[in-house]
C-alpha cells in the first residue's frame, strides 16, 4: 500500500512519506478528537512539522487550523500553536536557501495566503484574536497578520479597512507593555500602511504621531536602536504623499517635536551605523513635509513652522559641524535645500549663516567651494548645487546678491566670493565643475530680467596683455573650443537661460560675428549620437535668437536668421534637431523633480528648471521658424489690426465703464428716491391710521358722553372727532372727578378740622388753665400741617391738570392741521371738539377757583388756629405762674404747721410741768385746742383767696 501510493504520487519513499501520513493522522485528530488535550497535542505536532513539510501541512491542515481558531478560542495555548503553524505555512523564515528556491517558496506562501484570506471572516477572526491579551495568542497573531500583509498587501488592507474597529485594534498594539509585541506591532503597522492613504489617515487619527514620537523619545532619538528606525519608517509611510496627514502633523505641532532629533553633538565618536540610519530617516521625514511636489501652501506653512521652532537653525548647525559623516552631511544639505526653497524668510536666514571658520565665511561660499572641488563626493556636490538652486528659487534678492559679486563695482578682492567660485568653476578643467557652475549661474538669472542684463556687464581678465573679455564672450569661446559634452551642455543651458526673454542679451550674443556661423555649423553637421544633444541645444539657442530678436542688428534680423536656417540647415532638419532635446532619455527624468539626482556623473546633463524652459520654448520656436516672412508680415498686420481693435475695444470698454458708473449712480438715486417715496407713503398711511384711530376713539368718547348726558346734544353730530383728544379728555375728566372727590374729602376734612378748631377754641376759652389743652393744640397743629401739604399737592395737581389741558388744546390745534387735509367735515367736528374742550377747560377753571376758595378759607382757618394757639400759650403761661404761687403758699403753710406742732409740743411739756407742780390747767388746754382749730380755718381761707 505504502509502496503503491509512493509510486502513484511520484514522491520518493521514506521519511517524507511517513510525514505525509502523520500529517493526515494529525489532521484527523484535530478534526475529530473531543478532548482539548488531544487536539492541542495534534496541533503542536503539526506545528513542529510545518516547517519541514510546509506544503503538506498547508494543503491538508489549513482548514482544520482555521476551525481551531474559530472554536477553541478559550484555550490560548492551542490558539498559539495554530497561529504559529499557519504562520510557518504562509511564510518561510529560512534565509539560507538559494534565491530561486526562496522565490518558489514565496509563491507557495502567496498561494496559502490567498487561501486563508479567501474568506474575509478569517481576517476578522484574526483581528478579534488580537484583542486577547495573552502573549501566546497576541504575538503569533501579530506575526501572522504581518506575514499575510507582506504576501497580499492590498487585499488584506481592504478587509481590515472595512472592519470598523480593525485599525484601532492594531493601533492598540503600540500601547502594549511587552516590547516584543509593541515592536512587532510597529512592523505590522508598517505593512498595513503601505501605499494605502485611507488606512494611513485612520492610523494618524488614532494618535499614531503622538505615540510614535513618544516611543522615539523614550528610545533615545537618533541614539536609539532599530525600534527608532521602525518608528521613523512608519512615520514616513504615514506622511509620504498624504497631504491630509501632513496637514494634521503640522497642525498637531509635531514639527516642533522633531527639532531635538537634530541636536547632534560635535563628538566624532558617536556615529554608529544605526545612528546614521536613524538620522537619515529623520532627515527624510523633514523632507517629506517640505517636498517640492507638495502643494505650495502646505510646504510654505511647514517651512515657516520649521524656521519658527528652530529646526532649520539646528540643521544649519549640522551643516557647519565637523565630523559629520558624508552621507548625513549630504542628506542634511538636501534637507536644508527643501526647507528654504521658495521661502523668503528661510532663504534670508540661510544667506546669513556663517561657517565657524576664521575669518567667518558665509555658508553659501563654503558650500560652493565643495561644489567646484573635484575631490568632494559626487552626491555631495549635487546636494550643494541643489541647495544653491533652492536658495535662489523665487529669490530675486538672493539672485541680485550673487550676480553682484561678479560686477566690477562690488568685487571685494580680499575674500572669496560666490561669483568668483562660480567663474572659477565655469572655466576649470573639470567638466563636472563646469556644468554645476553653469547651472548655478543660470539659476541666478532665472526669471530675472535685471540680473540677465547686469550679467552682460561682467568682464573677465584672461591673460596678461590681452584685453578683457565679457563673460558672454568667454562662454561662447569655450563652447567653440570643443570641450567635453557635459561642459558644452552646461554652457549652452546657461546661454539659453541667459538670453531667453532678454532682447538686449540676444543682441549682445548676435553681435559676436562668430556665434551664428558656429551654431549653424553645429546644427547642420551630421554628427554622432553623443553630439545630438549639443545639436539640439544649439538649435534651441538659435531659435531663441529668432524668437526674442528685436531686429536691432541689421545682419541678424528675424527674417535674415530664418532665411539662414532655410538655406543652410533646412526647416525640417532644424525642427528635428530641436526635438533631440526632449527625446533624450535623461530629459524626462530631470523634468520630474527639482533635485539634481544622477546615477553617475556622466548622466549629469539636464537641469530641472531648464526642462521647463525647453517645454515653454519648443513650440513657439517651431512655429516661429515655420512661418514665412510674408506670413509673419501678415501676422504682424493682423497683430496691428488686432491692436487697433484692442484700442477700439478698450475705448468702448472705457465708455461702457463710464456708462456703468452713470447707471449705477442713477440706480442709487432711484433707490434713494423710491425709499423716500416709500417713507412718505408710510407716513401717509400712518397718519391715515392715526386719523382712523382718532375717529374710533372719538366714537367711544361720544358714547361715553352720551351716557353722562353732558353736552350730548352738541356731540351727537361731531361723531368723528379727533380720538386722541377725546381720550385725553376722558382722562382729564376722570382726573377732574378724582380731584373733585379729593376736594370733597378735603372739604369734609376741613369741616372736621373747623369743628375741631371750634371745639378747641371753646375748650381754650373755657379751660384755659387745663394742661391737656396744649397737647390737643399740638395735635391740631400737626393735622393742620398735613392738611396744608394736602392742599399744596392738590394745588400742584390742579396746576398739572391745567397744563395737560393746555397741552391738549395745543395738540388739538396741531391735530386739526393734518386732519384738515382729509376733508372739511372733519374740521367742523374738530371745532365742535374744541368747543367741548373749552367747556371742559372752563369747568376745570371753575374747579380751580373752587380750590382757590378752599385754599383761602383754609388760610383763614389757619390764621384762627394760630390766634387760638397763641391765646392757649398765654393761658398756659398764666396757669404755670399760678401753680408756682400755690406751691409757694403750700410750703409756707407747711412751715407754719411745723411751727405749730413744735409749739404744741412745748405747751404739752409745759402743761406736764405745771401738772407736776400741782396746778389745774384744764381751761388753758381747751383754749389751746380752740386756737388750733381757728388757725386751721384761717389757713383754708387763705388758700381759697390765693386761688
Amino acid at each position: 500500500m505504502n509502496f503503491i501510493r509512493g509510486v502513484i504520487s511520484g514522491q520518493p519513499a521514506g521519511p517524507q512519506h511517513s510525514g505525509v501520513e502523520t500529517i493526515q493522522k494529525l489532521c484527523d485528530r484535530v478534526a475529530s478528537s473531543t478532548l482539548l488535550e488531544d487536539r492541542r497535542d495534534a496541533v503542536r505536532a503539526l506545528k513542529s512539522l510545518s516547517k519541514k513539510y510546509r506544503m503538506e501541512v498547508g494543503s491538508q491542515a489549513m482548514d482544520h487550523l482555521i476551525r481551531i481558531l474559530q472554536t477553541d478560542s478559550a484555550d490560548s495555548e492551542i490558539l498559539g500553536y495554530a497561529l504559529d503553524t499557519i504562520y510557518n505555512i504562509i511564510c518561510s523564515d529560512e534565509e539560507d536557501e538559494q534565491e530561486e528556491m526562496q522565490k518558489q517558496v514565496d509563491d507557495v506562501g502567496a498561494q496559502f495566503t490567498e487561501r486563508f484570506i479567501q474568506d474575509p471572516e478569517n481576517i476578522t477572526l484574526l483581528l478579534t484574536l488580537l484583542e486577547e491579551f495573552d502573549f501566546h495568542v497576541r504575538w503569533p497573531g501579530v506575526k501572522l497578520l504581518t506575514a499575510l500583509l507582506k504576501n497580499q498587501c492590498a487585499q488584506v488592507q481592504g478587509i481590515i479597512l472595512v472592519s470598523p474597529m480593525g485599525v484601532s485594534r492594531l493601533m492598540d498594539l503600540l500601547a502594549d507593555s511587552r516590547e516584543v509585541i509593541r515592536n512587532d506591532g510597529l512592523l505590522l503597522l508598517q505593512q498595513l500602511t503601505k501605499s494605502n492613504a485611507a488606512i494611513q489617515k485612520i492610523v494618524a487619527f488614532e494618535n499614531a504621531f503622538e505615540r510614535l514620537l513618544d516611543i522615539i523619545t523614550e528610545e533615545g532619538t537618533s541614539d536609539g536602536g532599530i525600534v527608532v528606525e521602525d518608528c521613523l519608517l512608519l512615520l514616513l509611510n504615514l506622511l509620504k504623499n498624504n497631504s491630509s496627514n501632513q496637514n494634521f502633523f503640522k497642525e498637531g505641532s509635531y514639527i516642533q517635536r522633531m527639532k531635538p532629533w537634530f541636536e547632534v553633538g560635535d563628538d566624532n565618536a558617536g556615529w554608529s551605523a544605526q545612528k546614521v540610519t536613524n538620522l537619515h530617516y529623520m532627515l527624510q521625514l523633514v523632507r517629506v513635509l517640505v517636498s517640492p511636489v507638495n502643494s505650495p501652501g502646505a510646504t510654505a506653512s511647514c517651512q515657516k513652522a520649521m524656521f519658527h521652532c528652530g529646526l532649520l537653525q539646528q540643521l544649519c548647525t549640522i551643516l557647519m559641524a565637523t565630523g559629520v559623516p558624508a552621507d548625513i552631511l549630504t542628506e542634511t544639505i538636501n534637507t536644508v535645500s527643501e526647507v528654504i526653497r521658495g521661502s523668503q524668510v528661510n532663504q534670508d536666514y540661510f544667506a546669513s549663516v556663517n561657517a565657524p571658520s576664521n575669518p567667518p565665511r558665509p555658508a553659501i561660499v563654503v558650500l560652493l567651494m565643495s561644489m567646484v572641488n573635484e575631490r568632494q563626493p559626487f552626491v555631495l556636490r549635487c546636494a550643494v548645487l541643489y541647495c544653491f538652486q533652492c536658495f535662489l528659487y523665487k529669490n530675486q534678492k538672493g539672485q541680485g546678491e550673487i550676480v553682484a559679486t561678479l560686477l566690477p563695482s562690488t568685487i571685494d578682492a580680499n575674500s572669496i566670493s560666490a561669483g568668483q567660485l562660480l567663474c572659477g568653476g565655469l572655466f576649470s578643467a573639470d567638466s563636472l565643475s563646469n556644468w554645476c557652475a553653469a547651472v548655478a549661474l543660470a539659476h541666478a538669472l532665472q526669471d530675472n530680467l535685471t540680473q540677465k542684463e547686469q550679467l552682460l556687464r561682467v568682464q573677465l581678465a584672461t591673460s596678461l596683455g590681452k584685453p578683457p573679455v565679457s563673460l558672454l564672450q568667454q562662454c561662447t569661446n569655450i563652447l567653440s573650443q570643443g570641450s567635453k559634452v557635459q561642459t558644452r551642455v552646461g554652457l549652452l543651458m546657461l546661454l539659453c537661460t541667459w538670453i531667453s526673454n532678454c532682447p538686449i542679451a540676444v543682441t549682445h550674443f548676435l553681435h559676436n560675428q562668430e556665434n551664428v556661423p558656429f551654431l549653424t555649423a553645429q546644427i547642420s553637421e551630421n554628427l554622432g549620437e553623443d553630439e545630438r544633444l549639443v545639436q539640439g541645444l544649439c538649435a534651441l539657442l538659435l531659435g531663441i535668437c529668432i524668437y526674442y530678436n528685436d531686429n536691432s542688428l541689421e545682419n541678424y534680423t528675424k527674417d535674415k536668421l530664418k532665411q539662414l536656417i532655410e538655406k543652410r540647415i533646412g526647416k525640417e532638419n532644424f525642427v528635428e534637431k530641436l526635438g533631440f532635446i526632449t527625446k533624450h532619455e535623461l530629459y524626462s527624468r530631470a523634468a520630474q523633480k527639482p533635485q539634481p539626482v544622477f546615477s553617475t556623473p556622466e548622466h549629469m546633463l539636464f537641469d530641472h528648471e531648464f526642462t521647463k524652459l525647453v517645454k515653454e520654448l519648443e513650440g513657439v520656436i517651431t512655429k516661429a521658424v515655420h512661418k514665412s516672412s510674408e506670413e509673419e508680415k501678415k501676422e504682424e498686420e493682423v497683430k496691428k489690426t488686432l491692436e487697433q481693435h484692442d484700442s477700439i475695444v478698450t475705448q468702448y470698454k472705457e465708455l461702457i465703464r463710464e456708462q456703468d458708473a452713470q447707471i449705477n449712480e442713477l440706480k442709487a438715486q432711484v433707490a434713494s428716491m423710491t425709499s423716500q417715496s416709500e417713507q412718505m407713503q408710510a407716513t401717509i398711511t400712518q397718519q391715515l391710521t392715526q386719523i382712523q384711530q382718532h375717529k374710533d376713539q372719538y366714537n367711544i368718547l361720544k358714547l361715553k358722553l352720551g351716557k353722562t348726558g353732558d353736552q350730548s346734544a352738541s356731540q351727537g353730530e361731531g361723531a368723528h372727532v379727533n380720538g386722541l383728544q377725546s381720550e385725553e379728555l376722558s382722562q382729564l375728566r376722570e382726573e377732574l372727578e378724582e380731584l373733585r372727590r379729593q376736594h370733597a374729602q378735603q372739604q369734609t376734612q376741613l369741616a372736621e378740622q373747623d369743628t375741631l378748631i371750634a371745639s378747641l377754641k371753646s375748650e381754650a376759652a373755657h379751660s384755659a388753665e387745663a394742661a391737656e389743652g396744649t397737647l390737643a393744640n399740638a395735635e391740631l397743629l400737626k393735622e393742620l400741617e398735613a392738611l396744608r401739604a394736602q392742599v399744596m399737592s392738590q394745588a400742584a395737581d390742579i396746576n398739572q391738570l391745567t397744563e395737560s389741558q393746555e397741552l391738549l388744546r395745543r395738540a388739538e390745534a396741531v391735530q386739526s392741521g393734518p386732519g384738515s387735509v382729509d376733508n372739511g367735515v372733519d374740521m367742523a367736528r374738530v371745532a365742535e371738539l374744541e368747543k367741548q374742550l373749552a367747556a371742559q377747560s372752563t369747568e376745570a377753571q371753575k374747579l380751580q377757583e373752587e380750590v382757590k376758595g378752599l385754599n383761602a378759607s383754609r388760610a383763614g382757618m389757619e390764621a384762627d388756629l394760630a390766634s387760638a394757639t397763641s391765646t392757649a400759650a398765654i393761658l398756659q403761661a398764666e396757669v404755670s405762674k399760678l401753680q408756682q404761687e400755690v406751691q409757694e403758699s403750700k410750703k409756707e403753710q407747711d412751715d407754719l404747721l411745723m411751727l405749730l406742732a413744735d409749739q404744741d409740743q412745748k405747751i404739752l411739756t409745759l402743761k406736764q410741768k405745771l401738772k407736776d407742780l400741782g396746778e389745774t390747767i384744764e381751761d388753758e388746754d381747751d383754749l389751746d385746742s380752740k386756737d388750733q382749730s381757728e388757725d386751721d380755718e384761717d389757713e383754708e381761707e387763705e388758700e381759697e383767696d390765693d386761688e
Partner: protein
Amino acid sequence: MAYAYLFKYIIIGDTGVGKSCLLLQFTDKRFQPVHDLTIGVEFGARMITIDGKQIKLQIWDTAGQESFRSITRSYYRGAAGALLVYDITRRDTFNHLTTWLEDARQHSNSNMVIMLIGNKSDLESRREVKKEEGEAFAREHGLVFMETSAKTASNVEEAFINTAKEIYEKIQEGVFDINNEANGIKIGPQHAATNSSLPGSQGAQQAGGGCC
C-alpha cells in the same frame, strides 16, 4: 500654539450636503462653489476660545458616498464631537439621518456630542425640509440643532463653537474621561502641567502595572 484642550470632531452626512464647504468656511473663511468629491477623509484644524480658554479643534471631514461608509466608521470611536449634516433643499438627505445616527451611536463612545446641521439655509427658495422638522428630529434624538449656510457663513462658527461648548460643559461636569485620548479629547501641554496631580498619579499607577 498652546491650548488648554484639544477636541476631535468628525463631519458626517450624505454626499453633497456641504460638509467640506462647512469645514473650509470654518478653517479658511472662504467658500468654494465647486468642490471635488471628498475621497476618504480630509483634515482641518482651527483654534477657538471658550470660557477664556484656548481650544484646538481637529476636524476630520468624511466622504459622504456610500462606498466610503466603512472607512468613515473607523473615525467614530476617537471623536468627541460630530456634526451630522443634511441639505435643506434635498429631502432624501434628511430622510437618511436616522441611518447616520444609528451608525454613529453604534460605533462612537456614548458621550460623543452630536450636532444636527441643516446646511444651505441661503437657498430658501428651494427648501424642501422645514426648520421645524429639523428641530423636531433633533429634539426627538437629543441632538443640538442649527441651520447653517457654508456659502454665507451664517451660523458656521456657531455650529462648531456650540459643539465645543457642549463638550466643554461635559468635561466640567466630569462626564468625559479626559485622560483617555480615545474619547477625542486631549489636555494641552501647559494645562496638563498645572493639573499634574491627577495624571501624575495615574502615570505612577501605570508604571507600577508595567513593572508587574
